[in-house]
């Protein structure tokens, strides 16, 4: 075990890193727009950007206001009952008190694996959803740790942040797509600019940018998971609870059947990757579970 990690520092570090990553994404977008507009018509830069922004914001606003409903419906969650899920409701109430947030709506979804997610655009519209397996397999401290992690996503506005990331990725993809398609049609009258270098850079960027942006968004997602672990520990004052829950998750082997309960699109929302990929890499939405456990144990 190396030196103790203060959860306050940990939260601040993670926020800074997320901010840096988000800035990189914006830079990618602006850079891409710049190169494309240089290729066509430099004065079109702003028009071009505005166009990409409007389309992708419109698209995302719809999902933003319905994110919670879509997610809940896609995992077939139902509202927790005050008689059947006393322990769960009490844990959520406790964490709401500890975090100073309003009590979110509480849902339970059918699945035997231990998992949970939070959604909703701000703390007033937040929902927390846990699997039946979570309720059956975790004790009170572990459950509270998991709920605290989800409350931190709500408190840190992670859902809003991830939506923002989705908007930017959307804009980048649309800009790239428009550019690549237009090349197809305009290849005949190539005499207008003849800016070969910009065209080459443009093509490379247009192909790479969406991929790059997606990778950055996964990196942000991993940072936000660490941040939620840290502020979750602040709420329970008991990092060992979440650490022990994560250990239980680690030793679970999800049945093939169970994976059907988790649509791919909602996977990044969950406390741990429902598909349990073996290795953490650039394409992982969640950090390595062992890293998370060891960080929690050092707090």
């Amino acid at each position: 075990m190396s030196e103790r990690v203060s959860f306050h520092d940990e939260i601040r570090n993670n926020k800074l890193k997320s901010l840096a990553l988000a800035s990189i994404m914006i830079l990618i977008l602006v850079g891409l727009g710049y190169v494309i507009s240089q290729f066509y018509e430099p004065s079109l830069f702003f028009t071009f950007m505005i166009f990409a922004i409007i389309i992708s914001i419109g698209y995302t606003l719809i999902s933003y206001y319905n994110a919670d409903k879509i997610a809940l419906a896609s995992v077939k969650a139902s509202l927790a009952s005050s008689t059947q899920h006393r322990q769960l409701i009490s844990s959520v109430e406790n964490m709401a008190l500890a975090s100073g947030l309003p009590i979110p709506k509480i849902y339970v979804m059918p699945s035997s694996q231990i998992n949970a997610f939070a959604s909703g655009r701000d703390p007033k519209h937040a929902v927390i959803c846990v699997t039946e397996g979570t309720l059956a397999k975790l004790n009170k401290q572990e459950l509270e740790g998991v709920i605290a992690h989800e409350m931190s996503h709500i408190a840190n506005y992670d859902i809003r942040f991830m939506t923002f990331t989705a908007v930017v990725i959307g804009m980048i993809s649309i800009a790239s797509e428009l550019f690549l398609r237009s090349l197809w049609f305009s290849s005949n009258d190539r005499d207008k600019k003849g800016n070969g270098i910009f065209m080459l850079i443009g093509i490379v960027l247009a192909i790479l940018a969406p991929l790059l942006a997606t990778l950055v968004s996964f990196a942000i997602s991993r940072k936000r998971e660490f941040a939620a672990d840290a502020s979750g520990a602040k709420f329970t004052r008991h990092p060992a609870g979440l650490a022990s829950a994560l250990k239980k998750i680690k030793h679970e082997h999800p049945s093939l059947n169970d994976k059907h309960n988790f649509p791919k699109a909602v996977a990044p929302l969950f406390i741990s990757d429902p598909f349990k990929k073996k290795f953490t890499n650039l394409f992982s939405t969640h950090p390595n579970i062992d890293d998370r456990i060891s960080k929690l144990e050092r707090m």
Partner: protein
Amino acid sequence: MFGIILGAVLAFIVIMFIYYYNRLVTLSNEIDNSLSQIDVQLKKRADLVPNLLASVKGYMTHEKGVITEVTNARKALLGAKTIESKVKAGNELGNALKSIFALSENYPDLKANTNFLHLQQELSAIEDKVAYSRQFYNDSTLSYNNACTTFPGTLFASLYNRHQKEFLKIAPAERNVPKVSF
């Protein structure tokens, strides 16, 4: 050119004044809000006590001392005006209740009473909520105090006449598990 720079600097200063005023007020309101949360939980606990005593009375005939202790602590809690005295009375009530639950182990009939068990669960759940709301009070006090004492917040704090606030302390005696004599 000079005018633009001067204007920008002035605007920046005005924004700083507004920002720090709002920040200090918001953080201070959060503390008040967390106080009322503690209050709510303490009140809930006090409201459950008469039911608990009613269900216990028939069984614990030899434990007059503890029962009076609970009754008195509840009265003290309901009569308390300041938050310090409320929290103090709340702690006393909590300890007296713990004694009752410890003593209830000696009464198998009582342990089998569903009403009693239900109240016991309810009260221990409230116990957690009291602890968490106190923790949030201290967390919000910490954020407020940090804002008041770090630079440049400290300049504005003294300007707006805002001072650091006290944490809710747990007295050394209360940290111990209450002693129960048989």
